[in-house]
């Protein structure tokens, strides 16, 4: 199928967004306590689809929320009755504006595990019913390194519609998926199909963007070298100032570990699936009291190795999209980029 590129200007984009917000359930970055969360919006004025990268939280919670109901149960004299939960607030048809490239790629990474041997139907439904529209990434921020990873940022098909700056104030809307193509067609009021110079302009823009990265590495080299570094002494040194919180995993667009917990009142209860993190000391605590990762460096090793070795081996993707969110959110600014590079460049023992 041919994917169309439309052209517009800032005012046109504005009305495109406005039209979407008025016609669809729309989620977009909304400023809350000095950072941006993806929240349902009623008006363009209350959100910012071009929210700054370092201050924007991941779009992950729209598909894999911090806490979601799995099932309900009720204890009666006859036994325990189980039932499905109704009304998943994230299951309906919706559009998300202002999705960062890295975030969208994160969803592809999540797809791999959530639609793997067991398909998480809630997740799948949320994914199917959502149209993702990208933000305009013009400049890398301090901790960005998406271009150094194993996906094509320029032609990324993780979102349905890409919004890209052209020259002279022109803005291009490019369908990246079939879903996106249909969506654009339906919502193309006021947009014109782009002319021939569009591809070239977008390419120029991307090159400018790609040139703005402070952090650069060769992921394949990292993948390769990390494989042999399980016992690297560097692991023991790196996380000395880590405070063992779960922040990096919770804000990460790709971290997908969860825990199951029950909330009970009277005879009824709900089973929840909530974020969990391998940095949590209780993550690997077993019922008998044994904990294979009781100390920080082992948890850190797990985190780094999972991101750049194990996941790659299993799904041929890095479990990292180079968004830098973990570094920004880390209470002590530990950079995953720095960690993996130090480990990879450490001497083989």
């Amino acid at each position, binding site marked *: 199928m041919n994917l169309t590129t439309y052209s517009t200007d800032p005012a046109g984009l504005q009305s495109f967004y406005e039209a979407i917000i008025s016609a669809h359930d729309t989620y977009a970055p909304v400023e809350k*306590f000095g950072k941006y969360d993806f929240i349902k919006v009623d008006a363009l004025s209350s959100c910012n689809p071009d929210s700054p990268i370092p201050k924007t939280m991941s779009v992950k919670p729209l598909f894999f929320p911090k806490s979601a109901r799995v099932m309900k149960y009720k204890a009666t004299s006859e036994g325990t009755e189980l039932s499905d939960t109704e009304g998943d607030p994230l299951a309906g048809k919706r559009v998300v504006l202002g999705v960062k490239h890295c975030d969208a790629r994160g969803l592809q990474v999540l797809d791999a595990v959530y639609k793997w041997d067991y398909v998480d139907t809630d997740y799948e439904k949320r994914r199917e019913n959502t149209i993702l529209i990208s933000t305009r990434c013009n400049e890398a921020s301090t901790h960005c390194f998406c271009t150094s990873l194993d996906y094509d940022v320029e032609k990324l098909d993780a979102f349905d519609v890409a919004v890209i700056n052209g020259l002279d104030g022109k803005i291009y809307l490019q369908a990246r998926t079939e879903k996106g193509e249909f969506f654009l067609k339906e919502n193309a009021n006021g947009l014109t199909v782009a002319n021939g110079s569009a591809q070239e302009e977008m390419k120029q823009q991307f090159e400018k963007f790609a040139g703005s990265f402070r952090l650069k590495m060769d992921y394949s080299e990292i993948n390769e070298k990390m494989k042999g570094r399980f016992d690297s002494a560097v692991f023991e040194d790196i996380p000395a100032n880590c405070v063992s919180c779960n*922040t990096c995993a919770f804000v990460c667009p790709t971290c997908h570990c969860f*825990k199951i917990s029950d909330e009970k009142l009277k005879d009824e209860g709900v089973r929840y699936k909530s974020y969990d993190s391998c940095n*949590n000391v209780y993550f690997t605590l077993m019922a008998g009291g044994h904990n294979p990762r009781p100390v920080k460096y082992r948890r850190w090793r797990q985190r780094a190795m999972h991101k750049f070795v194990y996941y790659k081996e299993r799904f041929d993707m890095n479990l990292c999209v180079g968004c830098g969110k973990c570094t920004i959110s880390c209470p002590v*600014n530990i950079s995953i980029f720095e960690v993996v590079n130090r480990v990879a460049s450490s001497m083989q023992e």
Partner: protein
Amino acid sequence: MDYTKQIQDIAGRLFSENKIDVFIGYRNTGFDENQVPVLINQYKDVDQLLFTDKSVFNLANYLKYEHTRNKRVGLVVKGCDSRALNLMLTEKQVKRENLYVVGIACKGVVDETGEMAQNCIECVMPDAVIFDEMLGTPSGRREYQENADVRELDGKTLTERQEYFEEVFESCIRCNACRHSCPLCYCAKCCIDQETATLFQGANTTSSAFHALMTWSLHLAGRCVDCRNCEKACPSHLPLHLLHKQNEKVIYGNFQEHLAGMIEEDRGAFYKYSLSDPDDFIM
């Protein structure tokens, strides 16, 4: 306020005299203006150390991890950090003889915007209350001030406060960065991690965030030293200081002007009492 040179000298001296195994200080992130805590194990790394008004993190927090357990530790403390350290000593979490404390007569650190941080403006005790060596000229204890944000919220209606805090608790993702960044949250197992369905709420829902944050702030009531490690750690940028400062206000106003960690061997406000404590709220 720049004590980089002095701290490097002190740390160097301590290592060369073999008086410490670890020195906890600050270094540059290497990629921006900010500083991060660093644990140094050898003499040759001391030139990483620095101290300026961007040295924000409360380093007493690192005394609770395995890296410093039963080791001889040197560390840098500002006024608020030293109060936390004092309380940790009172609560037997560290041994004084294992510590070499470099106290700072603090002139205030800056926040994200580069302005002096709110807790520094309202600071009661900028000078380290416990130290082996003091850097800078102490400026002495200051008058207690009610927190400006607490006062502002207090002036609002109940409904406004309720709506405000609902948003706060809703935005909490329960990553527990606040807890892990707090030097006084050293419990072997936090009550919030007790997974039993009826005891504590394990899910990351708003109600469980309410539950966890309220319980947490009550466990720090009368112990919090207002270093704001928690707030700076919060990835959701939640105004966690509001809860602590509210408790501090009530405790200061009602329980003999108690402030945590100011005096040696002075435990938190909930572990003592006075016969003249307010009784009028009880029927």
